[in-house]
């Protein structure tokens, strides 16, 4: 176990190193001088710009800048966000919990939903129920994330006016609400983004879950269980479900990068000020330090999520280990 853990952590660190290098290279190869674009100005003297270049180390050769950036990043100093005019760390400290709340909530809900749907399908493989649910899931799985979000926004917010069109909470009154009022307000703002993400995630989870359940139902011990007089349905529920859950979690961990993309679009459409929203905004504002930190931190979150899923599963069932 310990060896496996060490291996996985080492692997994750390798990925992090790759991602940091990649994001640094991509951003620094891009055309345009970060100083002249981020600080808007030729109405700044060359002397001032030079001062800034020195201050941000942009006058050094690229490899040296890279090392400097690595050193600072490792120390937790992510630099200064030009567009938000505060340290990048503060920006991300605000954004990260919001993304985790949104995606965490959606994951929990879609897990519950996905397992139920997967189970309903696997209980009667190739029945009309299985096929119809399968089609609906495949449809949900094929839907463009941003389009689903836009349609939800159009229908539930613009047309029916049931929910606010976006944001974290009421922009004006939140600070002046009672404690209950604040909770209700926060929930109102959460419903649409969470619902959208849940729909997107459920499609993936239910498909994986069904596949795992079905492959398990072909195993010998399922046949034994049925032979022993346990009904098919209860055999699936009692034995297969428990055994299928762990691989599903593992696969979900593997697929976190794709799920993160859905979250980026949902945050964007519902202006949920999380990691995706902040990073996309920073790209638009050419806020290089925030772009780099956003990409790196999002990727680290994804890698950590996969690691946690993997390790948790391998602790629960030592037979399942991704090599």
């Amino acid at each position, binding site marked *: 176990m310990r060896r496996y853990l060490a291996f996985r952590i080492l692997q994750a660190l390798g990925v992090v190193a790759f991602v940091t290098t990649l994001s640094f290279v991509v951003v620094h190869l891009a055309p345009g001088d970060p100083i002249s*674009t981020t*600080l808007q*100005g*030729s109405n700044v003297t060359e002397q001032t710009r030079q001062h800034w270049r020195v201050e941000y180390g942009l006058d050094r050769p690229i490899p040296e800048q890279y090392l400097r950036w690595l050193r600072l990043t490792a120390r937790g100093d992510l630099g200064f966000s030009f567009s938000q*005019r505060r340290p990048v760390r503060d920006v991300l400290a605000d954004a990260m919990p919001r993304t985790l709340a949104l995606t965490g909530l959606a994951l929990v809900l879609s897990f519950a939903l996905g397992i139920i749907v997967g189970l309903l399908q696997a209980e009667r493989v190739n029945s009309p129920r299985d096929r119809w649910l399968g089609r609906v899931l495949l449809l949900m799985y094929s839907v463009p994330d941003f389009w689903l979000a836009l349609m939800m926004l159009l229908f539930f917010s613009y047309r029916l006016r049931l929910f606010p*069109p976006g944001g974290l909470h009421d922009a*004006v*009154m939140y600070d002046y609400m009672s404690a209950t009022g604040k909770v209700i307000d926060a929930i109102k703002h959460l419903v649409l983004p969470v619902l959208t993400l849940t729909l997107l995630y459920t499609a993936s989870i239910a498909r994986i879950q069904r596949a795992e359940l079905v492959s398990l139902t072909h195993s010998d011990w399922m046949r034994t269980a049925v032979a022993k007089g346990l009904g098919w349905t209860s055999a699936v529920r009692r034995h297969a479900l428990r055994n299928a859950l762990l691989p599903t979690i593992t696969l979900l961990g593997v697929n976190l990068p794709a799920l993160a993309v859905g979250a980026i679009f949902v945050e964007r459409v519902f202006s949920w000020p999380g990691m995706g929203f902040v990073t996309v905004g920073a790209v638009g*504002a050419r806020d290089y330090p925030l772009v780099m930190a956003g990409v790196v931190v999002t990727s680290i979150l994804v890698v950590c999520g996969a690691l946690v899923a993997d390790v948790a599963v391998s602790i629960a069932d030592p037979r399942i280990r991704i090599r």
Partner: protein
Amino acid sequence: MHRSRLTSCHMKRFLPFVLAAVAVAGCKGTETAATAGPADVGGTIVIATPSDAGTMLPPLITGITDREVTDLLYDRLAEIGPELNTLGDKGFTPRLAERWEWSADSLSITFHLNPHAKWHDGQPVRASDVRFSVNLIKDPALGSTALPLLSNIDSVSVRDSLTAVAYFKKRVPDQFYDLVYQIAILPEHVLGNTPAAQLKTAEIGRRGIGSGRFRLAKWEAGSRIELVADTLNYRGRPKLDRIVFSIAPDFNGAVTRFFAGDADIFENLRAEQLPRLATDSARHAIRLPSLGYNFMAMNQVDPKTPGRPHPIFSERAVRRALSMAVDRRAMLKNVFDTMATFGFGPFPHTVSVADTTLPQIPYDTAKAKALLDSAGWLAGPDGVRSKNGRRLEFSITTPSSSAGRHQYAVLLQDAFRRVGAVVTLDESDFPSYIAKLNSHSFDAEMESFQTDPSVSGFKQTWSTAGIGGEGQNHASYSNLSVDAYLDSATNAFDPARSKAYARRAFEALMDDAAGIWLYDTPTMAGIHKRIRTAGLRADAYFSGLADWWIPASQRSERDKVGLRPTP
């Protein structure tokens, strides 16, 4: 042309039938402004805006939200009058300076500060703050966009803690205006310890400690900026308790907030919202005066080889032909319908030197083609024109943050295609767009100018002196007769003469097709009917916000929050 509160009522004859009633309603509100009683203190106004502020430091403002917020937080020495006179000190009213005296030779002005004026942190406002503010904005390390406007201000000396003397290099009509309009007074004890070069990024630039009638309560990046009444202000407590700038991620979000009742004011209404407002019992539209004008600028210098003339736009015939290819009226209808006004020339129609009777280049596609033919730009087999092997192909640079300019660029792309030009759109995020403008690396670009009330503002944009450095002449347009006319207009002490010279400068620019004049910045705002406005000045409708009020009988939940301290 006078620009009083009633301007918005005069406007109604330009409006279609449906809008007339709306506009009248708006003016009614304005006219009753004077009747607010003591019970009418309180209330909250929420302004929906699609863009966050970038700074709380007046010399560093770049966007409209920056401008609105800092105007409310900081005071100037004196405030320009509603008629926007910029000659001498006529019409200016006291702010931080309770009075001032001119020296006999007009080369210095002595300002006596109001002894009751205090910063929001309780410190008194001193003459040394005036000196600090002028020195700071004149420091090139700060990088203020106002810097080129202040070359005539020599220095400020401190006579005693309440008396500051400003010295000028020469006597010009706008010298008083230059000093008081461009420079907001900043607190030295707050900002003085930070090097000027670092103020653009320093955290201190977000605190907004000024001496205005509103103070900054909270700036939640990307979400809201909340100002509350400065109850102990030397000019008296504002009638409103709070002003909240509610930052929506985009245009749509801001509109939705306005119609859902989450915001009281939305500044950039579009045509498609008008029918909705006409049937809305709680909201109406008012016309806000503004000094913005928009055009397609054509670079005179080749962006690929600086120093050489642009291979397409340096030719007057091409500029005129392209102008003829554009149906400016139809485009205005498409993008803004009645929400913006026609762009007559290189000026907003609201500015005092504007002349909307100057001859226009007419829309005539056939003539445009003929003109290109005769200039040697001949159509090839694919319909694209070329001359000496150079295809009639160029890009239009637009900021992706502006929906209106983007829409215009797409319309222009098709209009130019019809006369045989290939246009690509170069959409840049706002910082990159500004960087491209400043480095002159573009072919054509969608320019939007918010001019100053003074003629000198036009020199920044159209004179040879405005090329490069801190000037705003991004297209490097240079025309000696325009230079001369603008100089004469700026130096004339008599308003009528000044206008006559400006008119000739504009005429020359229009005849030369220096740009393709498109529209004056949209000026329709949606506003909740319970709000009574006051003092809608053309350069800054928001300057009088401290005197806006909400009758006690019409208050909403938001208005009743009162002045509880912000958590």
